[in-house]
């Protein structure tokens, strides 16, 4: 490929795939379904739904030509969706295939405390090669999620999060806003440089530590793990230097995210929300990252119907919501204004890819029954040599 071909190909690929005509094509609509978390199919053990999750290191391509190493449940970022009925007995067999420690915290679920996934509080970390079985009853209903609770700052933004949906046959939201289709959107923010440096450092440390542990040479000071506060204070008095003083090998700066994803992808490969005129759709929004997102939908108000999975007593309309870290919000969008509408973070620093606008968590609400001729383009676009009006582009 010569330079001219290279430039032509580079410019054509992203633009063509995002033309309105392409957005309305049946193949695009079908492919878009793969941009939402796949539901993990359980095996039944009596009346218990058994799910199998494993964690491994994986390469995630956020957008073409940009990959980074992630921690991925079942080789997916986000992890597969676990969807059960309220009151179901759930067993999750969690296998750690990495050389790092992990746990799983069931965010928003009323699990027994020993199943809560907080290392050294409710359980020991799940160490390399180990398996841990979580068992609980699915309560309460609503939109929840799961994530790693070991090295949370690193492990969550490395990809260890997934949706956990508890359905209720008498869901009041569905009664009030009848809908057929629903979408799950998991937001996250990633400092890929922090992730890379931290993962490399932790992998090196863990190789060393696992060798010592296998040989029965656990050293409290080396691991920074003490039985009591008094024991820790005494160790410091005897000359122990805690990691936060001088032994720190991780970057001293807190992460500054440079990639913002929805379901593990950044614009222009974020999922789109398809709707038809007169249809209502439910969108489950989950923030598995460290940043706040101020999500704004163009051309519509939506109904905020659930907060942290709990139905709000009086849904109210708005066009911008605040999705804080750890928060889940459910909204209902009514198809009342035909077109293609962007749905994006109004803190536009998060609508960037590695600092370049546009990118990040930008996505679109697309009326799939919109006549193709409405996607026609003006004279200027024709002069630019475009076949149709591109709703998105890669440069300002």
């Amino acid at each position, binding site marked *: 490929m010569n330079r001219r071909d290279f430039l032509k190909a580079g410019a054509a690929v992203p633009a063509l795939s995002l033309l309105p005509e392409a957005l309305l094509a049946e193949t695009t609509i079908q492919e878009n379904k793969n941009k939402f978390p796949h539901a993990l199919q359980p095996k039944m053990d009596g009346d218990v739904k058994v799910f199998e999750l494993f964690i491994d290191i994986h390469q995630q391509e956020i957008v073409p030509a940009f990959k980074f*190493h992630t921690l991925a449940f079942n080789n997916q970022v986000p992890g597969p969706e676990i969807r059960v009925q309220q009151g179901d007995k759930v067993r999750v067999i969690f296998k750690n295939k990495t050389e790092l420690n992990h746990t799983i915290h069931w965010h928003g679920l009323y699990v027994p405390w020993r199943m809560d996934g907080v290392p050294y509080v409710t359980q020991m970390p799940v160490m390399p090669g180990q398996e841990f079985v979580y068992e609980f009853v699915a309560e309460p209903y609503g939109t929840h999620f799961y994530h790693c609770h070991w090295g949370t700052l690193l492990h969550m933004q490395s990809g260890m999060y997934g949706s956990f949906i508890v359905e209720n046959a008498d869901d009041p939201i569905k009664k009030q806003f009848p809908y057929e289709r629903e979408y799950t959107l998991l937001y996250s923010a990633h400092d890929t440089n922090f992730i890379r440096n931290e993962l490399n450092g932790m992998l*090196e440390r863990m*190789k060393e530590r696992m060798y010592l542990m296998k040989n029965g040479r656990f050293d409290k000071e080396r691991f920074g793990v003490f039985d009591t506060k008094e024991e820790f204070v005494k160790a410091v008095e005897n000359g122990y230097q805690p990691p936060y003083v001088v032994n720190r090998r991780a970057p001293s700066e807190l992460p500054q995210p440079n990639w913002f994803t929805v379901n593990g992808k950044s614009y222009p490969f974020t999922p789109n929300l398809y709707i038809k005129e007169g249809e209502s759709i439910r969108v489950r929004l989950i923030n598995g990252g460290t940043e706040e997102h101020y999500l704004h939908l163009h051309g519509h108000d939506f109904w905020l119907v659930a907060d942290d999975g709990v139905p709000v007593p009086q849904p109210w309309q708005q066009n911008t919501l605040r999705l804080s870290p750890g928060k889940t919000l459910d909204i209902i969008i009514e198809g009342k204004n035909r077109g293609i509408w962007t749905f994006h973070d109004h803190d536009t620093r998060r609508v960037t890819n590695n600092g370049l606008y546009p990118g990040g968590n930008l996505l679109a609400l697309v009326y799939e029954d919109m006549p193709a001729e409405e996607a026609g383009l003006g004279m200027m676009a024709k002069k630019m040599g475009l076949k149709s009006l591109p709703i998105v582009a890669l440069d300002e």
Partner: protein
Amino acid sequence: MLKLRWFLILFVVFIGANGRTLFAQVSPEIQLGARGVMSFNTNVAAHEATSAVNDFSDTGLLLGFRQKLYNRFRGQLVIGMQFPDANSDLGQVFFHQTFLRVEDKSNILKMGRSRVRSALIEFPTLRDDDALYFTDVLNPFSSGENTEDNQYGNVFELAHIFGQRTWLRVHGEHFTETPVLPATTETDFSLNAIGFSLQYRVPETQIWNQPFLQQIGIGFNNFLTDRPGYTSQTDKMLKNISVSTILNLRPDPVHFWDFRVQGIYNAGFREIESAAAFGEFARAKATAGFASLRYLYRKLERPTLQLALSFGYKTFPDLLNNTDQLQVVANSFYRLGENFDAGFQVQYSRNNGDLAGLFGESETRFQFGLVYAIDQSWNKQFSDRNSLLNLEHGYIP
């Protein structure tokens, strides 16, 4: 000619301005390496008065910039300066590193002033040149006035990595000729050495995979000399062969032991039967061996105490005056803080035959020193080739 020059100037300005406008977002990784080595030396030499020196040689600063290039490549610029040995005739500051490097996953191209490939492995001594006559192939163009002549040169090097651990390097160097010619004389920077090496080595990041064999290698260094009386390039070539290995005797994270050894065979020029000058010393047939046994105590996942005992022996079979030399180096380093060590080293060297006249009969040197070495990066953009993610979980350019 004038038009061409103006065109070039305008072109460069245009490129510069355009670059600033279009690619303002691309800021490089910035790397800073600094090493301070300060020691108080007491030298006890045969037939000479005992001397004491406050020595800060080997102290240096390295500044690096690197960034992703198009496709899979990365580019890097390194500029470094070092304080050379006293009386080295290199000035107060010596720019020992000034090179550009382009690399991808398996290939490296390096051009510029840098460390020459005169040794396959490094040894645990206080300074890089403490055992230079045993650990490095020596520069036959040098007057011996300084050790840097043997360590740094103008380098052109291509490396290819097979798999992750087998390195093939082909290199050409211009080794410094000393004494340096007057500035008014046309200076020749043509290649005066070529060589290649093949090494198997385990990346440092995988040391806790518990490998016994850390490194094994062989290298060839050939100097293109002006050997008097010979016209054939083959006959004028001074040939050196090096072999080395590092064995992790006990790759334990707390009590770590390793052993390393390197041998250098210098085929020499048979007409050299005495060594009254450094040039003859470097061109005489010789076999050198240097070995180190090292113990490293790592208390909290960082080096705390290191003890090393090294021994070197070199023999010159063609020199008529029964010439050989030996060196013993013992040292210990204790970590005072992150990257900051206190060290004590004692080294004994003995020179027999011709070398007694060249370097003195024997010397015992006691050194108490402080060493501070940092290696910091900002605006990091990618993993190193040998990061565990890249090695064990798929390389990302």
